[in-house]
């Protein structure tokens, strides 16, 4: 478990270096990635549907990034992208295309559907938090 989390942390640090995140913000951004991976590992055996599990994890990552952006006075995207790095479905997109190239259509269909499920689930979770934040801002501005 600890090794798993450390691997997620270091891979996120590597991606932050690759994406030119400012040096002082690499640590909080990577901790966001580690925490969302920890939440995924904790909830994996308790939520039956993978889609709703990913909606929960995406909502957690978006909440973390909004709070961290508020504290660090930077755009939320800077923390949102690293928080999603351990979870994004890059491998299954690649395996789907490899199945297409190598004539294994059962694999291709399986991995393509898996890619769509992960991408749509994470994006839906992020959008839930984004919409709640927009409603909150509207209420603040208009005194509701």
């Amino acid at each position, binding site marked *: 478990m600890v090794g798993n989390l450390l691997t997620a942390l270091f891979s996120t640090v590597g991606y932050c270096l690759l994406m030119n995140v400012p040096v002082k913000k690499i640590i909080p951004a990577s901790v966001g990635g580690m925490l969302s991976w920890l939440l995924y590992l904790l909830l994996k055996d308790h939520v039956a549907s993978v889609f709703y599990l990913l909606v929960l994890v995406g909502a957690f990552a978006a909440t973390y990034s909004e709070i961290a952006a508020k504290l660090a006075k930077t755009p939320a995207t800077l923390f949102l992208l690293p928080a999603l790095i351990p979870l994004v479905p*890059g491998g299954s997109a690649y395996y789907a295309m490899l199945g*297409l190239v*190598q004539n294994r259509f059962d694999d291709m269909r399986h991995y393509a559907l898996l890619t769509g499920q992960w991408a749509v689930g994470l994006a839906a979770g992020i959008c839930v938090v984004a919409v709640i934040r927009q409603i909150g801002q509207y209420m603040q501005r208009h005194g509701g």
Partner: protein
Amino acid sequence: MLVIPGAALTNAVRDMLVGHTISGLLRMFESLLLALMLAIGFGSAIYLFGV
């Protein structure tokens, strides 16, 4: 495996859900094309050298 576009795919879906449909479609097609090109590279190496 480092250049496989996972984050771009998620961001594309998020863009489309938020309302930026054209930019989301563009990024999604770009990431799918990148994955296809990577798979073609790996697949032809496997085909040629029979790993």
